[in-house]
């Protein structure tokens, strides 16, 4: 039995330690925000936050995250009460098929928590690990700018945990 900290809650799972975190989140904890895109850490659709850093949950064995704070997009807010990142992505209509978006939001959240006012170049460099096949990059970038502005304005990073 492995005890995890996910979106502020303790969750126990009975899985082999080598199981990718992505599978545990989706199949055992029913958190379907992070997606399987490539399984190789090359596309970013599975991105979650581990502590303050974005990581690829598809190549992270669940054994290494025991006791460390895992956050998925579900932890940024709810439909009724979206956090600043979610509001920004909705307001900018940044999703087309939506498959990359949860990963994009988590990486962007990680960036804004460490650097509340990143330059445009810094955002692009930071986000370059995440791919979008539909090509909504410009909307995603606008959404990240907007999220940053919202966070600075309200003085909150929107963490629910």
């Amino acid at each position: 039995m492995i005890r995890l900290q996910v979106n502020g809650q303790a969750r126990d799972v009975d899985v082999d330690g080598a199981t990718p975190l992505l599978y545990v989140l989706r199949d055992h904890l029913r958190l379907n925000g992070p997606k399987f895109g490539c399984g190789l850490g090359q596309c970013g659709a599975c991105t979650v936050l581990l502590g303050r850093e974005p990581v690829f949950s598809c190549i992270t064995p669940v054994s290494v995250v025991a006791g460390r704070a895992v956050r998925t997009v579900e932890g940024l807010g709810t439909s009724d009460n979206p956090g600043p990142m979610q509001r920004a992505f909705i307001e900018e209509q940044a999703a087309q098929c939506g498959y990359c978006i949860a990963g994009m939001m988590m990486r962007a959240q990680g960036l804004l928590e460490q650097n509340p006012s990143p330059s445009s170049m810094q955002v692009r460099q930071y986000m370059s690990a995440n791919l979008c096949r539909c090509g909504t990059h410009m909307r995603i970038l606008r959404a990240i700018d907007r999220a940053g502005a919202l966070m600075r304005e309200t003085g909150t990073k929107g963490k629910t945990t």
Partner: protein
Amino acid sequence: MRTRTKSRIVGVLGVLVALIAAFIALAWRSAIDPVRPPGSFDRQLVERGAQLEAIGDCNTCHTAPGGRSYAGGRGIRTPFGTVYSTNITPDYATGLGSWSEQAFVRAMREGVDREGRHLYPVFPYDHFNLARDEDLHALYAFLMTRDPVSASAPGNDLMFPLGFRPLLAGWKLVFLHRRQFQEQASQSAEWNRGAYLAEGIGHCGACHTPRNALGAVRRDKPFAGGQAEGWDAPALDASSTAPLSWTRERLIAYLQNVVFPGQGIPAGPMLPVAHNLAIVPDADVKAIATYIASVAGAPFEARERRAADVLARVKRDEESPPSASPPAAQPLDGDDRDSAAAGAQIYAASCALCHGAGRGIGSGNAMHLAQSTSISLPSPTNLIHIIEDGVRPRPGERGRWMPAFRGSFTDAQLGNLLTYLRGEFGPSAPWHDVQRDVRKVRHEGNHE
């Protein structure tokens, strides 16, 4: 006052004055008058200068991260403090715009700027002094035709009293010697060309040769390995620990960031070197590769045997892929065994997908780790950098992509992975105190 005491005082004062005079004579350098250099140069000369600049990587040190090319401002950490690179654009007030060619040549060969100030040897004039007149002429033409940028470097942050530049005259007295490249008749023209470029403008030894306590390269141990920017520059001589020998063919590919079976690609400080060499004429890159391949010396039995073992293992694994988490090949004791077991699990979940034999399409055919040079080095420093930062091409370019694992593993977990990798894929001698290197790389700001 008694005559003997007076004459003693006069004697001591006389010696002091003589010493000071000698020191001034040693350290003082005249200023060279400012000039307005010609705005244009022969086009072919400038092109040749561009190629030499690429071999010398001027832009790498003389460009700040995110800054304008050649405008300086990049902090280079040394054991003595941080030195900031200067503006070498042809801006009159803040760059080289007032420098005559004579001033430029003096800087490159003697480490003295136009105004007569001594320069710190982090600027490798101890290597550049091998460059021929016509090559310095071409480099001058190239630099004088770049875009001028008005920018002044931040002040250096050096330990006391190294801020007092005349002290460098003493350093130079001991460690800087006039040099002229001597061709070796017993070697080919290509080898000689490679030696001239690698030892001179290419300044490979500035990183790959160890330095003494005063920061001077140890000419008695050429290419025995050194450090740069928080990475280890591996030994290229007979003490090289690389599993497969760096042959001329392998080096030609590696130095231009061309994928070649069985070896890694340039990472860390070698990446800008390889990017630059990709625009240098083939003949020059081949010449450098010929020379560097010869530095390793004649093949000897232990090395040949190890290379054969590595290749045989890779072939075996390709033909019948092992399970994703093979047990550590070396017998380990107590703690190391537990550490390796934990590391094996991380390897299976995080690395084997691409690096394990039998991996499929999309894995990018990542190298079998038995061929890894970083796992074979005396210290895990380089491997830690690679795991933390991954490998990626320059923005906008295609190339190999390895994910960055920064944030994924705690120090202890990373240590377990390193122990496993060394035991499974490296030479028989284990790494000692892996945590010390993990802390050094992660927590002492040596990341690029």
